[in-house]
């Protein structure tokens, strides 16, 4: 093997890590907003991702049946729809379930886990237990070869771009918009935020729904790199929690850094070892680092 080949393989493997990073980041972002803002551990977060993935599948089959000419164009619209459908279900979940449990954090864990099992069964009954894949438009297929022997898949590039846009949008909204100010004030001190005139209940509901909407986008991104089954989301939930805890619960920048670290470690180790040994190595590293820095990678430096 020449040096060039090793270099190319390292680049491609690194890029595979970037695709995993994208999905993990989108999952972790939604989870971090919900967990950081409301202290709610949303075990059903993976299922909101699955909702997004099935939304893409539905759009794909509907387009194929009724408007085959539009197959090239449906995908961007379906991503927006994935966000809003997951957003709507998130809104409903907060209203029906979560808001009654804010003072009982362990019960939210149990309740959302139950919700996750229920949703999985609904997916199974509606779409069947078999994994499905949407028909992706042609412009997402194939790969980009900047040089001989180096193939970067286009769907991976697309997912990366989508993630960058969503992450940038969330950070911008959180630090520049009125909603972001409400969220950050509520995170800092709920009772006091209410006493400065902020409707904290409405802020909670909107925040939960936005977190779920982002999970929907993660699901949409997921369809380009894997096939969707009723339990697809639950495969990612543990990793997503790892990302949030490792990054530092209140820090979105930490979420980005930790998603990157975890995905790259996993992906590069996978190339040299087996898949499960790579997982073991990743987990060992995380556990060790968390023992030294229990607050996570990034924690803001202020007097409390």
């Amino acid at each position, binding site marked *: 093997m020449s040096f060039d080949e090793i270099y190319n393989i390292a680049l491609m493997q690194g890029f595979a890590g970037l695709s995993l990073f994208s999905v993990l980041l989108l999952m972790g972002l939604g989870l971090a907003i919900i967990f950081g803002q409301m202290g709610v551990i949303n075990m059903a977060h993976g299922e909101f991702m699955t909702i997004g993935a099935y939304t893409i599948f539905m759009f794909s089959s509907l387009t194929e049946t009724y408007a085959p000419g539009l197959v090239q164009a449906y995908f961007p619209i379906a991503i927006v729809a994935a966000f809003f459908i997951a957003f709507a279900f998130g809104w409903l979940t907060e209203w029906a379930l979560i808001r009654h449990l804010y003072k009982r954090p362990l019960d939210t864990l149990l309740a959302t886990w139950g919700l996750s099992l229920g949703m999985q069964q609904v997916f199974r009954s509606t779409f069947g237990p078999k994994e499905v894949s949407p028909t992706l438009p042609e412009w997402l297929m194939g790969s980009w070869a900047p040089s001989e022997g180096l193939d970067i898949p286009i769907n991976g590039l697309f997912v990366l771009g989508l993630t960058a846009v969503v992450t940038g949008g969330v950070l911008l909204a959180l630090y520049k918009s009125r909603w972001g100010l409400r969220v950050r004030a509520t995170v800092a001190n709920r009772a*006091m935020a209410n006493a400065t*005139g902020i409707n904290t209940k409405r802020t909670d509901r909107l925040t939960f729904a936005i977190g779920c909407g982002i999970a929907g986008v993660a699901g949409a991104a997921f369809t380009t790199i894997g096939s969707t089954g009723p339990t697809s989301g639950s495969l990612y939930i543990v990793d997503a929690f790892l990302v949030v805890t490792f990054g530092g619960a209140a820090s979105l920048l930490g979420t980005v850094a930790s998603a990157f670290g975890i995905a790259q470690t996993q992906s590069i180790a996978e190339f040299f070892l087996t898949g499960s040994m790579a997982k073991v190595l990743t987990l060992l590293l995380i556990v060790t680092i968390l023992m030294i820095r229990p607050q996570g990678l990034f924690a*803001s430096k*202020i007097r409390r």
Partner: protein
Amino acid sequence: MLNVKDVHVAYGQSEALHGISFEANANETVAIMGRNGMGKTTLFKSLIGILPLKSGQIEVAGNEVSKDESYKRVAKGIAYVPQGRMIFPTLTVEENIHTGLENAKVKKVPDEIYALFPVLWEMRRRKGGNLSGGQQQQLAIARALVTDPKVLLLDEPTEGIQPSIIKDIARALNEIRKLRQITIVVSEQVLSFAMDVADRLFVIEGGRLVHESTRAETDTAHIKQFLSV
């Protein structure tokens, strides 16, 4: 302006306020004096709606607010500066003030706020948590003031603050009342501060108001007796 009628507040089974009634007029500062554990903070928390009333009524400018959540009370004209300041430590000074602009038409900090507290202008890009105690107190007052209140509640504004800043805060409160003609209700243990700002003084003891006097009539020795441990 603020009308409190027979307010009872309980923590579970144990009642902490046993029927508090008082009125505070527009352009008037009222001080509520009392030792620790006599119910000052409980009273203030129930006025802003952090603690629910067991019974009784609170009216602001004729509007009943007893059943409202805190943010609705703020919209109706109460603003609250809590004990221990409770500014948002992770937000910048400017963002802290912005949180009070929820009901404002223009989401911009009015110039008069920075004129009143120049130090906040200098510190506006810093995180609130990195300010000193006195600066945080000024920030908490600024955050409450931008809600354009009719009634301003301050719970022990001098607690843990160095004496020179206490004087500044007294001056600021008198300035605010002159500028805006609002009602100020302040709870205090420091009698000299209360005498600097208040037109009327109440003494709270064991969850009841036990003494009332105007500033001119106040017998400081008598009130000191209530405050001594």
